[in-house]
């Protein structure tokens, strides 16, 4: 595992993407085939299931270090990552074990069936034979996320540099269905597996937030404008009588939406379309909170299907009868899309409406009105644009409605995880409810590092608890928070749920007397 550990070190010691790519290329040039495949798998979230419960690992570590549990937990909350906490706490190794990455992974896969006692012997032996960084990697191989500053894109670029194959194709190749034991490295890069894979999605084309004046976009006639919807971006694939639904997180979510599958199955032709999964009732789009009730369910009950019916608003067509359409213009793709929906009719799938407008200044009013029917704002797409891979500036813009804002007071602070584990970065906020305070939101972004440092110092001085990850603080610090939407909620004590709350700014000019009341917050729902 030395070479893999060295690669991690090389990646961690630089901020420059090029240096990271260099390090990856070097690894791909020198490591055994199977190790390379596992590296790609691990960095893209394809990991074997956890063979050892994290609680057991914690227990064994406490046994080895003779630390009391509370001190272990304090350490954990300072580090923010279990695998790293273990690696840091364990005594120095007495032996050296050197095995290639894929052997470690294979052993861990086999470990799953073993008894806890056998697992313990194996893990303790490994801990005692690996130095700190290798030990961290070993713990990460067992479970937990592999966040080490290499994005999928960086990995793809490294593989493209190595092989000379088009990065789009590589992206396509590595996100699909393959396992390190079912393919060779060369076959993976050459995409030997993807022709056979009917379910293969395309990388989504993503938009940047509009940051300039509309007039800078040029001629109105060059742009297609649609509403932006707040659901789950999805890709529906119908190939050879089979239907697959992918979410933007590259997750296969077909089972969660049987009504979409039923509707699509009746369509003629094979195709891949891009759109938004939304909760839709009586032709009206419901808020995201409603859609959330449908997500990640093992069983979708009849009752739920009736309570929260789902629809699909179609934005784009990427493939029709095996022909890749992504290099065609938006305008052409739209024509094809309309044609497809002329030949096939359904209530559940609806074409995204194109907004008719003559000049730019009409759009602002439309955008501001969007929230009234649960749209997030507008999407502007250049009619000549191809369907890009990922986020590309210039052709697609999202132009959201201005967020709602309220003033709130901080009542709890919690340390962040990973990068932010040394600071209090996650805050819980409250508004007034007569003489009391009631929690309305948790938020953890929007402040500068400097502000976070200042707040962390304040929390350290003003916290009521001394142990554990959460600190109750005096209600003193006032913040303006922004959010995309608001709805009544039975699950929340305050009776309301905010969508995407984040800190807009720290209101040092305000005190707890100036914050919003629950009544003024609820009044936002009615508007």
């Amino acid at each position, binding site marked *: 595992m030395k070479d893999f550990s060295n690669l991690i070190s090389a990646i*961690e*010691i*630089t*901020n*420059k993407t090029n*240096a990271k790519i260099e390090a990856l290329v070097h690894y791909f040039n020198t490591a055994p085939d199977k190790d390379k495949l596992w590296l790609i798998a691990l960095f893209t979230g394809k990991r074997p299931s956890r063979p050892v419960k994290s609680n057991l690992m914690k227990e064994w570590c406490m046994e080895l*270090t003779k*630390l*009391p549990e*509370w*001190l272990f937990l*304090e*350490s954990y909350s*300072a*580090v*923010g*990552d279990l695998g*790293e*906490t273990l690696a*840091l*706490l364990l005594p120095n190794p007495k032996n050296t074990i050197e095995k290639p990455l894929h052997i470690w992974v294979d052993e861990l896969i086999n470990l799953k069936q073993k008894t806890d006692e056998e697992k313990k012997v194996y893990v303790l032996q490994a801990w005692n034979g690996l130095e700190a960084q290798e030990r*961290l990697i070993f713990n990460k191989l067992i479970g937990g996320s592999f966040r080490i*500053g290499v994005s999928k894109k960086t990995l793809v670029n490294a593989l493209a540099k190595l092989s000379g194959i088009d990065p789009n194709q590589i992206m396509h190749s590595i996100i699909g269905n393959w396992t390190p034991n079912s393919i060779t490295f060369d076959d993976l890069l050459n995409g030997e597996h993807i022709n056979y894979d009917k379910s293969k999605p395309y990388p989504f084309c993503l938009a940047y937030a509009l940051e300039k004046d509309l007039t800078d976009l040029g001629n109105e006639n060059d742009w297609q404008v649609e509403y932006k919807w707040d659901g789950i971006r999805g890709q529906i694939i119908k190939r050879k009588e089979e239907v697959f639904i992918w979410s933007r997180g590259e997750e296969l979510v077909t089972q969660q939406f049987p009504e979409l599958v039923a509707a699509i199955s009746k369509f003629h032709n094979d195709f891949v379309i891009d759109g938004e999964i939304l909760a839709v009732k009586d032709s009206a789009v419901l808020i995201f909170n409603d859609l959330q009730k449908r997500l990640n369910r093992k069983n979708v009950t009849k009752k739920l299907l009736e309570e929260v019916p789902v629809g699909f608003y179609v934005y784009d067509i990427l493939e029709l009868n095996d022909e890749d359409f992504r290099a065609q213009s938006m305008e052409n793709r739209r024509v094809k899309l309309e044609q497809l929906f002329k030949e096939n009719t359904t209530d559940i799938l609806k074409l995204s409406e194109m907004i008719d407008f003559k000049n730019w200044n009409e759009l602002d009013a439309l955008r501001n009105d969007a929230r009234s029917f649960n749209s997030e704002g507008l999407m502007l797409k250049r009619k000549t644009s191809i369907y890009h891979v990922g986020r590309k500036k210039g052709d697609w813009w999202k132009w959201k409605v201005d967020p709602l804002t309220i003033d709130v007071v901080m009542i709890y602070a919690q340390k*962040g*995880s*990973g*990068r*932010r*584990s*040394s*600071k209090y970065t996650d805050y819980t906020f409250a508004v007034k409810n007569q003489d009391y305070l009631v929690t309305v939101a948790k938020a953890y972004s929007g402040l500068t*590092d*400097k502000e976070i*440092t200042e707040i962390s110092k304040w929390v350290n001085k003003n916290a009521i608890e*001394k*142990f554990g990850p959460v600190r109750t603080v005096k209600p003193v610090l006032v913040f303006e928070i922004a959010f995309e939407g608001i709805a009544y909620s039975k699950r929340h004590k305050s009776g309301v749920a905010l969508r995407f709350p984040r800190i807009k700014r720290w209101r040092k000019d305000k005190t707890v007397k100036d914050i919003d009341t629950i009544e003024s917050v609820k009044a936002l729902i009615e508007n």
Partner: protein
Amino acid sequence: MKLVKFTKKGIYCIPGKFYLDPWYPVKYAVISHGHADHARWGNQHYLCQNDSKAILKHRLGKDISIESLGYNQPKNINGVQVCFFPAGHVIGSAQIKLEYKGFVVVFSGDYKTQPDFISTPFEPVKCHEFITESTFGLPIYKWKTEQELQQELQNWVLQNQQNNRTSVFLGYSLGKAQRILKLIEHVDDVFVHSAIHNLNTAISNSGIDIPKSTVITSDFKKENVQRKIVILPPALLGSKLIKKIPNAATAICSGWMHIRGNRRWKGVDAGFAVSDHADWEGLLQAVKATEAEKVYVTHGSQAVFSKYLNEIGIEAHELKTEFGDEEIADKEPQKSATL
């Protein structure tokens, strides 16, 4: 016996009528070391260890009333015997031992038990009561040896040179900067910020050997600095000066860099766990070596460390102080920045 009491102005020695590292101006201040949260401005009289004298004068003013003692060289103040012992924290850093009628209290100041190449190594002192810091009071903190750090820092510089990059270290101007200089001595030319340079000059003038470096001014010539080594105070992260350095690779040197999340926090390239404070084992060894009946735990993880000491049978109490943590100091003291 009550030899010291903890007041708003700081730790006060009752019979001696003086304060230890007070945070508000007093008549007589006994100072553990030169960091701004320990040696504050405005006291009428200062007593410190010999090697700290030049630093205090440099930071607090040439005309302060100050006297100094060597390590192990006692002085009687109002019947209290005051004596400095090496704390291994920075140049001139001392633990302050107070002895009165056979009763001994030791105030650790900031300390590090592992030897480095530049400060006088830590020496444990037996006492009845020990006042200890606890900056890195969690068992996750375990430092590498100075030799290992030397290897790590030098490899990084060499790697940068191969990639045609300039190595920029960020470290506090008193302590960390001199330690880095020593760790990378003889590798290549080193440029330092004026705050570090002036301090180095003051320390060198008092007869302590500091590796050579050149001061970097805002109008420096890029070709002179290219591929070399630069040391700057942490506050300069994101400054114009650092942006002007050609092809810079940046590294923070601080004990907090022991945790991966912290290394990623500041958006620098690398983080090296070079700490001037004791790690967990260091704190425990130091406390045990004093054989103290009672331990007071100040700045850092005082809640955690004192709870743990009590659990292993050492009576410990938390003590709230105004001492900070220069390891994460975002701002250098203004005094030295203007000098």
